[in-house]
């Protein structure tokens, strides 16, 4: 099969959310001696873009998005080790610890953000819902994350976004991690008030936000909250 044919197959596997196919086709690509970086950008990401556009038109929905993200993860697991260290930064964006804050058991927004970050090539450690303050930090320390991303749907749980930032400051770790906030209870004003490094209004914005934070490399805490909306 031609290179383009393989790229189209890979894109289709991502669109279909087929982890097994994504993994197998990625292996085929390596066996054929094709540049894995090219395969990611011309195949996998092309598939993700299609799913993303369909989602914006409500022609594809959250399950398709999450499954596409899982297929992307499977593809990256095969291809990334074969990308040279200096070029790896083009596709592997960094590690993000993600969770819905303590007292809040809403999952949907967080799942969407996790998917959007995965499709942008970030390694996401999803802690789930109702995550205590210290757990965010413990996980970030454990995996060497660069970003702590916190979702909150309720006003009274959004306070825990501030608690995490305060804890980082009190523990002398504030300049080690970017902190971003989102969810229905968050806003640009709230993010600024609590000294978060970034705020994204939607899950798509979250992906753009993390990309900018990690490429612009202004060390945390940022002098002004970066807002994407």
């Amino acid at each position, binding site marked *: 099969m031609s290179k383009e044919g393989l790229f189209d197959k890979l894109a289709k596997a991502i669109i279909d959310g087929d982890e097994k196919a994504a993994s197998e086709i990625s292996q085929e690509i390596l066996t054929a001696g094709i540049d894995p970086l090219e395969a990611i950008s011309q195949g996998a990401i092309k598939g993700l873009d299609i799913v993303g556009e369909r*989602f*914006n038109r*409500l022609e594809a*929905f*959250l*399950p*398709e998005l*999450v*499954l596409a993200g899982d297929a992307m993860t499977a593809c990256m697991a095969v291809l990334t080790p074969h990308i040279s260290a200096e070029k790896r930064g083009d596709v592997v964006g960094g590690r993000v610890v993600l969770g819905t804050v*303590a*007292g*809040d*058991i*809403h*999952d*949907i927004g967080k*799942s*969407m953000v996790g998917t959007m970050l995965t499709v942008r090539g970030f390694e996401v450690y999803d802690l*789930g*819902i109702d995550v205590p303050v210290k757990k965010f930090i413990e996980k970030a320390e454990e995996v060497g994350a660069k970003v702590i991303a916190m979702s909150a749907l*309720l*006003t*009274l*749980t959004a*306070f*825990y976004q*501030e*608690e995490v930032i305060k804890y980082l400051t009190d523990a002398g770790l504030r300049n080690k991690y970017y902190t971003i906030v989102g969810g*229905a*209870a*968050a*806003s640009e*004003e709230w993010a600024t008030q609590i000294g978060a490094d970034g705020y994204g209004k*939607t899950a798509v914005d979250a992906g753009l936000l993390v990309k900018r934070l990690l490429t612009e490399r202004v060390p945390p805490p940022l002098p002004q909250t970066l807002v994407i909306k």
Partner: protein
Amino acid sequence: MSILRMLEILDRAHRGPICTLKEWNTKVIPTNVSRKLEEHGLKGTCDPANPINTDDELADRFFKAGFELAVEMGVLCQNTERVIKVSEDEIRTAVKNAPSQVFLGKGVDTVLLKHRQPEDKYPVLGSAPTAVVVGEDIYTKFTEACVQYREVDVLEGATISTIYGRHALARTPYETLGGWDEAQLTKEALARAGRQGMCKIGIISSPTEYGQLGGFGTSIGGLDPEKDLALVLVPGELTTSYEVFHKVIHTNICGGRVLMNYASMLGGFPGSLEGTVLTYIAMGLLSFAVHPAICMSGIDMIDVRYLGNCGREGMWVHSVARQAAARNTHYLVWDMLDQVGGPGTEMLLYEDAVSMLMYSASGGCGCFTTRTSGTRHAEFITPLECKFCCELLHCSAGMTRQQVNEIVKVLIPKYENMLLNPPQGKSFRELYDLETLKPKKEYLDLYLKVKKELIDMGVPLDPYF
């Protein structure tokens, strides 16, 4: 509430089939919903060009499919990650035993909530305001300003996020004290407005069970189980949790009544718009079957693209789902409709008109009114839009779906291109005189202008303030 029945349900929460939350959301729900839509020929029936459904046969087909989905799926307990299944008989029995009318409040402030059919001549009851954060310093004044309007039938109340200046952190004793504080401040506001007997839905400031424990049914100053309603929020699609069960049990032990409200996302795990209709119907039925002795159910269905639901897709989904349930059951509902325009803007008033008219014509019973600016901005809500929504609900009783559809088709284009970036508007402090608790001229003029516009379109509103 039968203790034995509750124990049976809890047993199932601990012994039912295992399923992770992720698998439930990304595989079980979409697969089953899609299959059910296919079986009943419901795929592709969404008609956003006509946001108000007028096809009774379509609504009935959706109900049949939603009922089957409820029987086949059950709900997932998030804490145990096990599925609570209930039989068809159990669902039918629970729905049969659910009340079709209840009195809310006491004395002269008593109102009667009744099951309604689409185009029913009995009016929808409205509660206000909806859960926007208001500062502790003006909470009582703001609440008094809302309930001074007799059009407002029931008080929901703003969220109070601090107690004596401290954040009311969820699942901490601060939240418990915050729940009590909400009850106290509310009582004072009702007394000042001369509406002591008004039903209050609470505890709003209660993300976990602790807020309710502090403020509902407590002997010193809590909400009154005989006149008030306990709000129990269910977090996700076809799920439940320990927090939900705690609140249901606590409310029933206090002799109170539960208003259960569950969340759903358009574009979320049910997949298509038609899929969201099915989960609305299924969850309504399962609310009664899985949570013994709840009084009424309701949904908050949000479009993931803009976190509101007053777009044409949101209105279509809600109208057909509401009609399906109203035509085929007698249980009571109290739904939430989510506007994203800010106070003091035309957009908000148009969104209010579209959503309230839809709900009234589609067989709603009670309605949380006006959730301005998507509740993102503290104090960006005023009593005027609360009053406006309740006026719309009351006056539109008896309007046909066809009439409402024609009006809605004119109104939605006025704001739908702003749904993604809506105007924030102005705050309560900017739009209201805090001494007289009256709206300032600029907002009053806007409200009267939009009212006239709606009257000219055939909405039977009173032209005066």
